[in-house]
């Protein structure tokens, strides 16, 4: 059950989707709640960014506070067991709800959480020569006021050779940089985690009781990159009919360029699952986690795994969608 505390002009209102009589009554004033998501910025890596979307509320909630206030403090909690008390619910989100849309049926607020890295930039003319990726992130973490965890970052062949031509927003720069060297990063409770796209950030195995019929997709691709030393370099010409994607790199030495392009192609061309699961919370899913499963609903059994890239929590249908690339084998 979803429990929402919304402060309207100094009064805390306790809200739920369908009315819950717990220690207090959580009134059924929520029309809908967009799925909170963690979404990787590029198909081959980058910032796994949290997006909390919107919450729509019935108009009568604001009957004594008309018109609806521009901004309200909000806390959103969830517990998958209706029988337990409200105190044991897990906090999903705390932040600000800002008035977004109003129509005859509902009031919609956009949800905004703490802003990390606001105003932090990568200055123009910053130059890196043979600088390990971890070092770039270490400097950036200091600027952002975050701790850094590079336990799962690659230790070799990640040297950056690059000069920043135009000033760039720091989180965005780090996203482009990490993706080009096949890493993702995410921020959780004051720590920035840098993870190699080919490493498992924890492992879990699920059974067929744990997921709904799901879809595997593949998208053939040719990856191309251009650098001063190598000129135009391709990976994936085995599939000449594939769509070509040009990526930006932050390396220049020919072996590093070749490795980076091949890694991106490897990631892009793996089977990708959109795994839909019943809502079980807290579900210990983190970006990069390896989820192993079997699928006996095919003509022959399939063993598969994915690494988590995108996570979407659908509270309206109590469903979690997890997207990630991986491998499938027979049996």
């Amino acid at each position, binding site marked *: 059950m979803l429990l929402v505390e919304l402060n309207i002009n100094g009064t805390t209102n306790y809200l739920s989707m369908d*009315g819950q009589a717990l220690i207090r009554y959580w*009134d059924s004033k929520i029309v809908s709640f967009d799925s909170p998501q963690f979404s990787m910025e590029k198909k081959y890596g980058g910032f796994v960014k949290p997006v909390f979307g919107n919450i729509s509320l019935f108009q009568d909630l604001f009957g004594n506070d008309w018109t609806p206030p521009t901004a309200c403090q909000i806390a959103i909690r969830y517990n998958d067991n209706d029988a337990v008390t409200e105190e044991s619910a897990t906090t999903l989100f705390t932040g600000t709800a800002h008035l977004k849309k109003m129509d005859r049926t509902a009031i919609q607020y956009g949800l905004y959480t703490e802003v990390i890295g606001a105003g932090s930039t990568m200055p123009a003319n910053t130059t890196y020569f043979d600088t390990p990726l971890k070092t770039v992130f270490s400097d950036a973490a200091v600027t952002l006021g975050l701790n850094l965890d590079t336990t799962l970052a690659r230790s070799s062949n990640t040297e950056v050779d690059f000069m920043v031509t135009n000033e760039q927003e720091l989180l965005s720069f780090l996203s482009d940089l990490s993706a080009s060297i096949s890493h993702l990063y995410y921020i959780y409770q004051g720590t920035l985690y840098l993870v190699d796209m080919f490493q498992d950030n924890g492992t879990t195995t699920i059974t067929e009781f744990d997921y709904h019929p799901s879809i595997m997709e593949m998208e053939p691709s040719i990856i191309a990159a251009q650098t001063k030393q190598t000129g135009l370099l391709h990976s994936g010409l085995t599939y000449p009919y594939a769509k070509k994607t040009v990526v930006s790199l932050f390396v220049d030495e020919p072996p590093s360029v070749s490795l980076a392009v091949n890694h991106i192609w490897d990631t892009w061309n793996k089977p990708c699952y959109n795994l839909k699961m019943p809502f079980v919370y807290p579900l210990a899913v983190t970006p990069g986690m390896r989820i192993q499963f079997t699928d006996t*609903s095919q003509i022959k059994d399939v063993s598969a795994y994915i690494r988590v890239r995108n996570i979407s929590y659908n509270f309206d249908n109590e469903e979690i969608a997890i997207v990630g690339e991986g491998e499938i084998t027979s049996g």
Partner: protein
Amino acid sequence: MKVIYPDKVSGVTAANAEANYPDDNLLDNHPKKVWRSGVSKSSVTVSVNGGANAVAFAGIDAVSIALTVKNSSSTGILEAKTSYDLKGINTYYKFITDTYTLYNSFWIDYTYQSIAHNLVFEFDNISGGTAEAGVVRAGPARGFYEPGFDLTEGMKDYSIIKELNNGAFYIRKRDIVKTFAGSVELERDGDFYVFMRDVILQEGGRPLFWRITDYNNNDWTVFARADKTLKAKHNKRKYSSIDFSFIEVL
């Protein structure tokens, strides 16, 4: 078939109430949003304006209840105390209960009171339990003919049920409510327009207490709203047939 309309309740006062579940919760439209006494035995005084002869509760949790009709200052008794067993159906007392869902409803007819009066209820729950109720309404019971033999009763299930990969099902049990549908034939120059214009047109989709009766004198009390806009046929010289569809509210 009867409906309590218009509502004549002017206020409620409970002897006991938990801070988060005050007695004012009895006056909204949500049986799930209960008044909770916090004790097994408690009383509720429902103040009613003149012109009422029926009272109904939804979302009640008690094993028995007693009603005394008193004057508006509660100093004089207008109708002696009558006790009701809530554990079953007892039509002898013109008392209708439906205990088959979580949101139990019941209806009591009492002597018509033309002036303001108080309905004093004594709730009694099992030892260690807490007496509670969701909604109360009191007013005139407007009567209509019984529905025809096309009366149907059903359920609407708000649960989430979805297939898992191996063919099993994920089931998240949520509320299930009762539905009633049928038709009632009423004299056009009379009850037909009372039903259509004096009640439904005034209330629209807001819930009301309905007491639906079949030809065998079985009764169902339900706090329900019209599921869709009512439609009627003027298909007889003096009579018209109304198709109704009610859904219990939560």
